[in-house]
């Protein structure tokens, strides 16, 4: 995990350096040369690049991402953290939507292989992967907000404002997970231990839920964890469609105004969430599959 964190900070450091001289951005246009030199020295920008990177890492560890250029005199990190709950609500709700749809649909597709429930589930899975999620969002707004008037068009209010963004963000993941659940379960259903369980007279439902599904879950949970990065990425576009005030919308605003301290805050915080999700998946493995232990 530490090399990955270092890698991420290095990418951000390089991007910040490429984006332009921070001293020029911080000083007025008519600043004297000696003022530029003095500020450069004060910020340590006259030191060698490896020293600058070390200083940058030290600041990051202290939570000092710099001062936002857009929100004057405000530290970048609190601005990002203030928007984080909105994104977390959205991604968790999307994750829930994806699981609620894909789990039963994948099982039904595998159990009724090559029959109409399978064809329906597989068609949904393929369509869900081919559709751009932001287009689905616009179509949902058209149907449920404009035509039927059931749900709000945009913004973050009560629970009903979460429904359309969560379905929009969760559908592509649901499609992927349905496909995965179907194929993993089909593989497990052909295993000897499932045949043995059936042969010893266990009820079909018990064989399916206790023996087959539990074993198929490992691949399902793995991909679920790996897809947190895709969800966070998808959230950027979904937040734009629904004017959802999360870190995705903040990132777009920050990029448009070249507010590098806020951008690096968003990148580092988003990456840390993705890595934490992968860590949680590792812990979940041990719970799902007792053969795995980390001792």
């Amino acid at each position, binding site marked *: 995990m530490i*090399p990955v964190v270092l890698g991420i900070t290095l990418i951000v450091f390089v991007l910040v350096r490429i984006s332009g001289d921070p001293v020029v951005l911080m000083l007025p246009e008519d600043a004297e040369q000696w003022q530029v030199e003095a500020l450069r020295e004060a910020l340590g920008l006259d030191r060698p690049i490896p020293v600058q990177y070390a200083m940058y890492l030290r600041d990051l560890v202290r939570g000092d991402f710099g001062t936002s250029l857009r929100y004057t005199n405000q530290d970048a990190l609190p601005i990002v953290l203030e928007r984080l709950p909105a994104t977390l609500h959205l991604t968790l709700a999307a994750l829930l939507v994806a699981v609620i749809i894909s789990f039963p649909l994948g099982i039904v597709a595998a159990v009724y292989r090559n029959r109409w429930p399978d064809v329906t589930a597989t068609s949904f899975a393929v369509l869900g992967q081919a559709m*751009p999620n932001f*287009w689905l969002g616009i179509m949902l707004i058209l149907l449920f907000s404009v035509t039927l008037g059931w749900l709000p068009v945009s913004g973050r209010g009560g629970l009903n404002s979460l429904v359309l963004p969560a379905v929009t963000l969760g559908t592509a993941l649901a499609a992927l997970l349905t496909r995965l659940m179907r194929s993993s379960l089909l593989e497990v259903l052909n295993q000897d231990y499932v045949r043995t369980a059936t042969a010893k007279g266990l009820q079909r439902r018990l064989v399916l839920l206790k023996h087959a599904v539990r074993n198929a879950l490992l691949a399902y949970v793995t991909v679920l964890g790996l897809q947190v990065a895709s969800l966070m990425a998808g959230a*950027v576009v979904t937040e734009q469609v629904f004017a959802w005030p999360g870190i995705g919308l903040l990132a777009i605003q920050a990029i448009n105004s070249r507010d590098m301290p806020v951008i690096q805050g968003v990148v580092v915080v988003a990456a840390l969430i993705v890595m934490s999700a992968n860590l949680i998946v590792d812990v979940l493995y041990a719970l799902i599959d007792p053969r795995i232990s980390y001792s």
Partner: protein
Amino acid sequence: MSGLWGFLRRLLSSPIAAIGTLVLVTFVVMALFAPQLAPFEPTAPNLRARLAPPSWAGGPAQHVLGTDHLGRDILSRLIYGSRIALLVGIAGVTLQAFLGITLGTLAGYFGGKLDVGISRLIDTLIAIPNTILYLTVLGVFGPSLVGLVLVIGFIGWTTFARVVRAETMSVRSREFVEAARALGQYTPIILVRHVLPAIMAPIIVVATLNVATVIILEASLSFLGFGVQPPTVTWGRMLADGRNYVATAWWLATFPGVFITFLCLSLIFLGDRLRDVLDPRLRGR
């Protein structure tokens, strides 16, 4: 030649794959002959025909899919938009494939510190939510067609690298590679002549499916204003315009999405069939 025909016959023997190929060919023809096929100039405004609905929904007969907020013909814009979608999709994936195959083969064949280094780089790139990274880099360098392709290629090669690395590891100790090594062939020749052909099947499958992913990505970035800039027509930009008129002119946002979905569906159908034909181990996944 008969091998190619046999392969094509097997590929197209599935009705779904045949439909996918037909749709894909239609889009390619549309992109190549856009000036001949488009009934109107895609960027020419006609303020007297603003927000006209499709002809079959009560609009003027000459605008089959209606017009946008500047009176531009939607069908013509969709036809021209297919050029950018396919261009970015194919060029982006070609660059991704080049980088991913090179780094994946090196990591898988040599192992050791090189493998650790490349694997860490992959882990780092997939830990950052990709849209945020794409937007940040495009924000720093400024959006352009070439910039977009380069960014998609340089950030999105990880899928290729992971697949190629795993496949290379499985073939590097096979007899034909050992034999080439024992004969004293140069390592680059072993990699290009022996290893690469043996792992081509999954690469072709990943490439086909990745074109669909990149087309959706390009549309997302254009939707957010970081794709190819106007006056060039992109489906993502059309969707962004349509989002603003969703309450009054449903056709603006509906048709670009339908086009993207159909193009991606055709690629997914084709990719799935290629997987069945080229790599039977993965059938049904």
